[in-house]
């Protein structure tokens, strides 16, 4: 047996997966509360103890982990124009698995610096200007960031004609300062890969230590990446395949959590109908969005607000009934539903979270009336022909009817401008393996892919 230990230090739970490389199987999975405040190893030991040890003890060939503990990877992005380089910087940070606390555009102000101090990001991503374009904003913002009273890791991914000089300025105050390729080298071209790698590098070399996560590195080889980056890596592998092993094709993963709902799509999203024009910033093939107001527990109040009438219509309940259930969620965020009413409420909330998160993730089709008749303009990705939607996250794994919840991701004829999947096949990551398989990809992509194909359940 060649056992690999894969760990996800989540914000609430530490999840452990043990995979057998030879037999391409999962030996066991378990979870326990994350113990970041004392010693993060404690929670890990509790989780690991739940999986029966073979005679002679574990002999792990690899031990890898990802983490979203201690607030995850918190980032602030800054660019020039809100819709252009600031948006490109935001997408690069999301793609690197970060929680984006704030996005600034144009020149940073003293108020912005105050906001940076209050939100205490782990990394600042500084963009602005296309290559050979505007230099002033990058230099000005670099200078401004030197006025911060603390040193922070900074990744520069702006106009290449100014980034060297910006780095020299920043190095006087901040450490490390890393220069990556411009997130928007030319207008309308998004190039986030280099920035993504630079962010991951800073995460590995600096952030883990500053969060006290390096305590586990005596036991583990290392924490490889933030958890969302691991999920995105698994999604890419599962979609594209590896070598002779075929993938599942273009797909979407919806992860409904207690605080946020994440959507990952691995798809080109080109127009599916003829004579549709694409406008706006191109989207990354592997795209991740995070909805901070759509969560089952910590953000349940915001979710009820965001879904508005839709939730009441779906449940057929009165406001009092909803308020009562909402109270329970707030009282005890750890609770699992027991009564019939609670199960129904969780289902409705889950469906709303899936629906709204996918609404915001997919592209839109707009009809423009010109003197020559109607024309169609698409912004973002057209995911109507997407064949695969995979669900993961607490509510989907513990609910008796995950399909009903996932149906929220489907195209709604009453909202034809939202380009959601029309007739996808639904799957469930029933063993919560995606993040672990994103890690295993680093060791053996072929095995990680086969395990996912074996364990992801068709609904």
């Amino acid at each position: 047996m060649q056992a690999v230990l894969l760990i996800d230090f989540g914000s609430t739970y530490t999840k452990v997966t043990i995979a057998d490389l030879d037999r391409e199987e999962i030996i066991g999975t378990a979870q326990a509360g994350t113990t970041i405040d004392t010693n993060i190893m404690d929670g890990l030991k509790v989780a690991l103890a739940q999986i029966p040890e073979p005679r002679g003890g574990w002999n792990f060939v690899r031990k890898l982990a990802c983490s979203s503990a201690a607030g995850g990877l918190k980032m602030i992005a800054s660019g020039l124009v809100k819709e252009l380089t600031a948006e490109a910087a935001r997408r690069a940070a999301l793609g690197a698995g970060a929680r984006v606390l704030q996005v600034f555009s144009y020149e940073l102000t003293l108020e912005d610096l105050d906001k940076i101090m209050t939100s205490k990001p782990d990394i600042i991503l500084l963009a602005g200007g296309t290559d050979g374009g505007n230099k002033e904003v990058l230099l000005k913002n670099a200078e401004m960031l030197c006025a911060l009273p603390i040193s922070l890791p900074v990744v520069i991914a702006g106009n290449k004609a100014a980034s060297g000089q910006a780095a020299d300025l920043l190095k006087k105050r901040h450490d490390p300062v890393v220069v990556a390729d411009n997130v928007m080298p030319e207008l309308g071209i998004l190039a986030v890969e280099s920035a993504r790698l630079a962010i991951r590098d800073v995460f590995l070399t600096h952030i883990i230590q500053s969060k006290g996560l390096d305590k586990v590195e005596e036991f583990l080889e290392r924490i490889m990446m933030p958890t969302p980056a691991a999920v995105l890596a698994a999604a890419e592998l599962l979609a594209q395949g590896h070598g002779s092993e075929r993938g599942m094709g273009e797909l979407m993963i919806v992860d409904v959590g207690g605080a946020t709902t994440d959507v990952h799509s691995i798809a080109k999203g080109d127009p599916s109908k003829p004579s549709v024009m694409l406008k706006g910033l191109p989207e990354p093939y592997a795209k991740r969005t995070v909805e901070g107001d759509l969560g089952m527990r910590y953000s349940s109040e915001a979710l009820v607000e965001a879904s508005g009438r839709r939730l009441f219509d779906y449940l057929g309940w009165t406001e009092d009934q909803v308020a009562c259930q909402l109270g329970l969620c707030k009282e005890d965020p750890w609770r699992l539903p027991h009564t019939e009413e609670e199960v129904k409420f969780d289902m409705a909330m889950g469906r709303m979270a899936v629906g709204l998160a996918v609404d915001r993730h997919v592209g839109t089709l707009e009809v423009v009336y010109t003197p020559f008749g109607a024309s169609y303009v698409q912004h973002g990705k057209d995911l109507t022909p997407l064949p695969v939607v995979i669900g993961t996250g607490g509510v989907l794994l513990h609910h008796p009817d995950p399909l009903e919840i996932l149906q929220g991701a489907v195209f709604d004829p009453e909202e034809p401008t939202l380009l959601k999947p029309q007739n996808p096949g639904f799957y469930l990551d029933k063993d919560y393996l995606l993040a672990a398989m994103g890690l295993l990809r680093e060791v053996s992509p072929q095995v990680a892919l086969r395990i996912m194909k074996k364990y992801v359940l068709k609904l």
Partner: protein
Amino acid sequence: MEQKTLVLGVIGSDVHAVGNRILDYALTQAGFKVINIGVLSTQEEFIHAAIETKADAILVSSLYGHGEMDCRGLREKCQETGIGKILMYVGGNLVCGKQDFESVKERFTAMGFDRVYPPGTMPETPIADLREDLGITED
């Protein structure tokens, strides 16, 4: 001499793509760096592109007769966003029907355009004007 950057596009709900491509080709051949934002472009898209690329001029095309409506306020928005002095050209079928071009030119000049071109202008004309206005010397 440093390459000059131009933002080129067709404004408003106008989908005429052919002339836009010809201009893109001709201007690129003439040595300019062309940022072509294509058809159906809003005023904001012209301005954002110009800011981000630190463009030297904005070239607006309008072929469907609604140019006057679509172009109104562009100069003011440029001023507001810090690129108020940028060179701005406009050309195409700017207005509906057969109107006297001198009056059309007057209206667009009042709107803040530095050059206004009548229908049927060949690319050579604005290229020569750009060279003059941007102080590009032949070498």
